């Protein structure tokens, strides 16, 4: 549906993408796109213009930070909010502030449950 929130998930773990898509689309007005590599993700982002991008930091082909930088380069994707999702951190040691940010970036540590994920997505989108 056109009012659905379009979410692009870029993560090299396919099963994760699968579940995010299934659970999000079951739980709310979400339209979820999947990419398992950074390059694929950038392509999809440019063509589909999602409302929010879920980006894994640690990917073998192209690290998440590079993907984010590339997205910033393209005008059509530069303003799309990015939610970094990563297993490399936990709540304690990243010293996330109240909004789950480090600096200007939103970070969601794995593992997360679907409910929390949805809450976070909504919070981010409500802002923008």
């Amino acid at each position, binding site marked *: 549906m056109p009012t659905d929130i379009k979410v692009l998930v870029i993560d090299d*773990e396919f*099963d*994760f993408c699968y*579940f*995010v898509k*299934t*659970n999000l689309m*079951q*739980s709310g007005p979400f339209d979820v796109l999947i990419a398992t590599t950074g390059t694929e993700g950038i392509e999809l982002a440019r063509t589909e213009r999602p409302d929010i991008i879920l980006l894994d930091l*640690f990917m073998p082909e192209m690290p998440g930070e590079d993907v984010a930088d590339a997205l910033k380069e393209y005008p059509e994707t530069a303003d799309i909010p990015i939610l970094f999702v990563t*297993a*490399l951190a*936990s709540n*304690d*040691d990243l010293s996330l502030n109240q909004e789950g940010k480090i600096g200007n970036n939103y970070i969601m540590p*794995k*593992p*997360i*449950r*679907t*409910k929390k994920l949805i809450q976070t997505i909504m919070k981010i989108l409500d802002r923008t």
Partner: protein
Amino acid sequence: MDMAAPLSRKRIIFLVRLTVILTTVYFMLFPPSGGQGLQTWGYLFIVFYLLTNLVVAYIPDRYFYDDRIFYGFILCDSILLPAGIYLSGYVGSDLYLMFFFIISLTTMSSHFGYLIINTFFFSFLYAWLLYQRGLLTGPHATGYWIQIPFILVIAMFYGYLVTTRLQDKDKKINEVRAYYEQIVRGTDVFMCIVDREGKIIFANPKIINFYGYQNKDDLVGLELSQLYSEDETEAEKTLRQVKSVFERNETSRHESFDKKHGIWFAHTLSPIRDAATKDVSAVCIISKDITDRIEKENKLNNTIELLIKTRDQLMQQDKMAALGRMASGIAHEIRNPLEIIYMGLDYLENNIPDDQVQIREAIDKMYHAANRADNIIKNILSFSRKSEWKIVQLPICKLLKNTLELARQSLQKKNVAARLECADESLEVAADYNMLEHLFLNLFENAADAMADREERILTIRAYKKRITEIGYKTGYRYTDFFKIGDDMVVVEVSDTGKGIPKDVLPKIFEPFFTTKPVNEGTGLGLSIAHMIIERLSGTIDVASQENVGTTFFVKLQPEMKFITKQEE
């Protein structure tokens, strides 16, 4: 007299007197014409003289180098001989005795000047005696006239020979003595000679000055222990060494520290042996100032110690860094699948009818299991992350107070009364605040859990400074020890009145994943992480426990940063 044989003064006197005796005996037996044989007085004289010569034979040589004794003998003989001759009434052959007598007298001259004076004087005396007896004008006058220059020449000749030999010998002795005296005087070492009881026989100028005396006579006769007045153990040690050299007849060496002057000495004690008996008659102690060397040695040892410590710590850091990297990697590898499990469970939950209670329960249990796994990862990661550690000097009592405050709710819920005893509010330790907090929180919670079924639930926390006196785990004298005997450490005691830990369990409590709690209630990592944190801080942890009485953990920490190297980012 055999001119080639070494002439000692004693030998001279002895031989001369012997010659006198023999000559006299000869004239007694074969009196020359015109003379009478020696009368009774003569015999007595010879016997007496013989006896005294025997005595001379037994007097040690060195006495004759005392001028008083040597010239004393000569004087006595000078009086005795003429007296004897006179008393014997013998006129004729006494002149032959006089002949030898004069020669022997002149050979006693220690000096060429005296030699010449003596020779001429006695030759003239002889000439006058001859004249007195009218021999110079009598029938055999020519013979007697010739005797005068003859005696002059002979006396001069023998005198010259003897004197030069003696002088040579004396000169040589003096040269040698001067040579050794120079060595002893100019040497940079401390030298003294002591006897069996440690009494000083000789001390060189260096020692005399060092101990503040004026000249060596002040020192001679002093006991060594009086020199080392401030330090009885040193004196005893040296005295023992001296005695040992006497007994074993071997050189011995040892080192000692002079507290008063702050100098390290290396002593060499060598035996001085009697030339004849080869027994030890004295000990020569040569001492050298080795403070420099000792200081350099100490510095070297300290540097080595520091290097080893640093190397160990670097190795440790390396290990920890590797662990950290591994932990990160492992965490990542485990968390991704965990994430999928969560999301999978979410999906199942969403798609199972509400009335499928058992299935929902199963899903619940799976969540808990996944949570437990995640918690373990969290625990390991939080500990192994290098960048989190900031080791500073912090006030331990304040930290304990704050930590107690954090645990207050949990403790109150379990009805535990907590007591903090801090002797000194300014007590400090070198540690990372968060890690210590984590550690003590863990200990407090363990304590509270241990008292769950008890009537009396008191948690006592004590913090104090303690001087290390006993050897223990990583505590002792070795380079690798965290705590050295004599240093200080800060001890934090966490005591509970709980059910205690059985003896067979006690050695295992710090093992990772070891827990006596039911499966859902704990990871079993708390104490092992506590142990790792403490080791990281170069501290140690001990536990004492009595079943049904309680348990006390002793956390021993470094009071100062100097032992822990700062973590480099």
